[in-house]
């Protein structure tokens, strides 16, 4: 091409003067990596504004942050079931107001659907509908009574409550609402049976007391 001074000779295709470098001058190094994550600053930042109004707005901001956590709009993530149910957790729960949106303004598909439960189980109080909600103490007591009537063996009341409450909550979180409430009940019972130390069939058959015990022993005797 015209203007090429010959092979191998370094030549710029444009007037280097225009960009500000003179010929033969050392050019700045080529940058081979991204800029540092925390670059050094030559100048310190300007101090923040201070004053009465700034303090007030700051206080407002911090209060607002605390308030929104207590509002019914703050949806808690359903906690995974912990290995050890802490007794104090039950008493440290924050009670929030229930919020019911105006359904006339919202699309119908957002309404929680309540499936009708099968016959005898309809008396059982269960938490349905919108996500995890607090276990109603009255419902839980009712449930305990009914379960006791069924004669599921000896369990402590609190263990029952805790497990049912937390299981129901985790079920609410995971299950699709299509799940029948009846299935929920059965599953609860099964889980309860596995979780405690007592063997359910141990005391049920009085005659075969000695014979059956060996078969049903899950745990080692010391």
């Amino acid at each position, binding site marked *: 091409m015209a*203007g090429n001074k010959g092979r191998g000779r370094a030549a*710029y*295709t*444009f*007037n280097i003067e*225009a*960009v*500000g*470098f003179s010929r033969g001058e050392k050019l700045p190094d080529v940058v081979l990596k991204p800029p540092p994550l925390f670059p050094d*600053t*030559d*100048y310190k*930042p*300007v101090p*923040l*504004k201070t004053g009465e*109004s*700034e303090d*007030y*707005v*700051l206080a*407002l*901001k*911090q209060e*607002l*942050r605390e*308030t*929104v956590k207590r*509002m019914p*709009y*703050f*949806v*808690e*993530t359903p906690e995974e079931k912990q290995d050890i149910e802490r007794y104090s957790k039950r008493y440290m729960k924050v009670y929030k107001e229930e919020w019911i*949106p*105006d359904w*006339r*303004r*919202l*699309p*119908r*598909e*957002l*309404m*929680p659907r309540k499936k009708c439960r099968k016959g005898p189980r309809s008396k059982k109080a269960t938490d349905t*509908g*919108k*996500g995890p909600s607090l276990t109603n103490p009255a419902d839980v007591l009712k449930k305990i009574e009914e379960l006791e009537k069924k004669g599921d063996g000896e369990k402590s009341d609190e263990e029952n409550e805790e497990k049912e409450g937390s299981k129901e909550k985790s079920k*609410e*979180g*995971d*299950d*699709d*609402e299509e799940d029948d409430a009846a299935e929920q009940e059965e599953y609860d019972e099964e889980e309860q049976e596995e979780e405690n130390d007592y063997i359910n069939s141990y005391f049920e058959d009085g005659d075969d007391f000695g014979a059956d015990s060996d078969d049903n022993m899950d745990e080692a005797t010391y």
Partner: protein
Amino acid sequence: MTQAEIKLCSLLLQEHFGEIVEKIGVHLIRTGGQPLRVIAHDTGTSLDQVKKALCVLIQHNLVIHQVHKRGVVEYEAQCSRVLRMLRYPRYIYTAKTLYSDTGELIVEELLLNGKMTMSAVVKKVADRLTETMEDGKTMDYAEVSNTFVRLVDTHFVQRCPLVPATENSDTGPPPPAPTLVINEKDMYLVPKLSLIGKGKRRRSSDEDATGEPKAKRPKQTTDNKEPIPDDGIYWQANLDRFHQHFRDQAIVSAVANRMDQTSSEIVRTMLRMSEVTTPSGAPFTQPLSSNEIFRSLPVGYNISKQVLDQYLTLLADDPLEFVGKSGDSGGGMYVINLHKALGSLATATLESVVQERFGSRCARIFRLVLQKKHLEQKQVEDFAMIPAKEAKDMLYKMLSENFISLQEIPKTPDHAPSRTFYLYTVSILSAARMLLHRCYKSVANLIERRQFETKENKRLLEKSQRVEAIIASMQATGAEEAQLQEIEEMITAPERQQLETLKRNVNKLDACEIQVDETIFLLESYIESTMKRQ
């Protein structure tokens, strides 16, 4: 939406509504309008939780729903509205300055709850105010209602779109989602309510809390089963009006800094007069005659007509062009150039950033290029009177950070570099956008750092809260000084030190967020105003 904006939205949603709502919200911001099932499938959350999250988001005006063909309802997130959550404290403080505590609480309740009926707001605010008053005194509903009506009249609070009233419901199945409509003139129409009552304290000792019943209208009691007279009429805070107010404040303080108090008062009067007559996106206000301005000056200001005219001429001649003269009738017609004012404010912000980041010589070069529009390398060195090497270095630094850009002007059609002019120029719009993006990133970093600091010291914070609770309960039951001392010593001196440091750091980070948000507001207003004019 840029990555920085999405990150900031995610942090804000998480702080306000928890992780589930955050997941759904961010997904919608990223992907645009989507129906319910697709959201549940893509985010892997249960249908139940998605429904709840959407209810919360719609309630707070962050997501809108639309019915598409074949009955599919799509949900779309409003990213810019989510970013406004950062500004809530500023809105509440503004309401306080304008309408004192009652106004402050009304706006706070509306922002916290998204939308509410007037009766619900009045009741809640009256209760809250009564809590803070001395024993025996209660807050009357009428006073709160008055403040509410004043807020509506000045357009700080507006009506939400309504569900259209359906006369006959048997023309086929009802639509899957209501299409909400609002009439311009209905937006600030307050329904005729007569709210009688007083605020209640939470203690049950207040027997005379309810007012006298009126025979015709149901009185506002704690009984929820009574029909609410303004059912279905919801109100929300009108953020645009607040933004207008902030913009006016910024212009007035700029004039005060540049000139003097009197000129800023004149500009404030002009802005106040054009509050309701000028639409929010207009480039300049309606022309105001000098006589009108003279009549509307605040009562305490005793300046003569002549002095006012002199000030107006001075303002109109100022190179910043905040005020312009549009005619001579009525003693001179003057307008405020809103767009130019916002442009000047944005430019000032840019200059200040360059100065603080790169030094005052860089700032000189920046201002020079801004003024002369296009300059060659050689010309920059000559005009700025800075040695060539340093000038080159500074220009390249600013170029790499995108404050300055290069404009190529080819001499020949083949754009050969040796025969092309390279001119340095500043495009305020693109520099403003770049700075805005950096601001979003800064706020996201600040929030993350604050959360990190709080998490690091979580154990200590919980301990101190427990100790405070114990002390409070002991004081209530009347404990001795020695016992209280003992409890207080549960927190050792180095721990106290650590808590102090933590508190100071968190306060600093919070204050930073608030002040970066002020810059964000200026830049956003400028960009919005420029885009509207194109």
